[in-house]
């Protein structure tokens, strides 16, 4: 039990996907202008990362390792992730057209971003068991969502402030993200794994 908790805290906070591992920065910068879209995007990405990581683990264990096709890892993972994303959309459309319509208009499309592929690659390189891998993926994506929401809140405040023209837009956002990264470095004292 304690081992699971340590895996989750380490994946979500200590080695945060965005602020420590630098994955998923494109959507970090692009989606965080409003808290609500960031939170919605966080939910969606959590689902996609967890589901596609489980699928990638299965593909790696039962297909690539079993037949010695390790070099096909990049190509297969991309295909699995793209199919997982399409599959998610089709499922939501089937289950509830109203939800699909609403999410389709207001949330940005999820494409293969570095966070999804990166988490999958991290899991297989760590040679984790299925349970550990699922927890790792889930916790990583929760950490991702948390940071997106926090950063969105910061940017909403930033929008109300006078910023020098040269700094307006991406530069000041990066600098604020750097400060957030500094704050999250405080978690590195929770060692263990």
């Amino acid at each position: 039990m304690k081992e699971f908790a340590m895996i989750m805290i380490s994946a979500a906070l200590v080695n945060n996907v965005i602020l420590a591992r630098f994955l998923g920065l494109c959507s970090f910068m692009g989606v965080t202008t409003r808290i609500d879209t960031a939170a919605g995007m966080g939910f969606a990405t959590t689902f996609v990362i967890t589901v596609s990581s489980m699928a990638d683990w299965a593909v790696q264990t039962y297909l690539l390792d079993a037949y010695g096709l390790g070099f096909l890892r990049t190509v297969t993972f991309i295909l699995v992730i793209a199919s997982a994303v399409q599959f998610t959309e089709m499922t939501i459309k089937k289950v509830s057209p109203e939800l699909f319509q609403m999410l389709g208009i207001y949330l940005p499309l999820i494409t293969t971003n570095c966070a999804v592929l990166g988490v999958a690659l991290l899991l297989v390189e760590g040679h984790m068991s299925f349970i550990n891998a699922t927890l790792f993926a889930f916790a990583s994506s929760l950490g991702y969502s948390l940071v997106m929401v926090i950063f969105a809140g910061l940017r909403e405040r930033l929008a109300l402030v006078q910023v020098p023209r040269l700094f307006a837009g991406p530069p000041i956002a990066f600098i604020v993200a750097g400060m957030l990264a500094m704050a999250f470095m405080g978690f590195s004292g929770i060692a263990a794994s």
Partner: protein
Amino acid sequence: MNATREIVSMSQDSSTSMVEGIARVVRVEPGWAWLEPEQTTSCGSCASSASCGSHGAAGIGSVASRLQSRRFRLDNPPGPGELREGERIVVGVHNSTLLKAAALAYGFPLVAALGGGAFAQSAYESDPLSMLGMAAGLAFGLLVARIGAHRLAVRGEATPRFLRRARPDETCK
């Protein structure tokens, strides 16, 4: 200054409680208008830009084809405010509704799936059975999502509301 104007308009956006999205009218029928969302990909760049799939050239898995499958209808009563093909409008929905929708569609099924898998794992200790438990949890979660969405839709909260016509320089954000 351009930057100040951008900043001022941002503050107006976040002080209302509506999430806004831009959509383009693609077809007009008597009394209805079909709209297609103008979307950003999670890359951050606008879908209508050249770098992520051009409009009209929709291939499998391209951004344009996924946007086409997201077309929706809106009331278009005849009269002076009538929408015409090619116009860009802003539609909105309440913050809380969007959050509830995202949690229902993605959050709850995932948690239910993981819960089902964990329960099966601790009770039966076998891999195939825990995958089955996960599938069962997922199915249950999706069922709850369907019911919850139906309740949202019945109360009329899920329909996008026409807010205004988009200004020419208004982007997908």
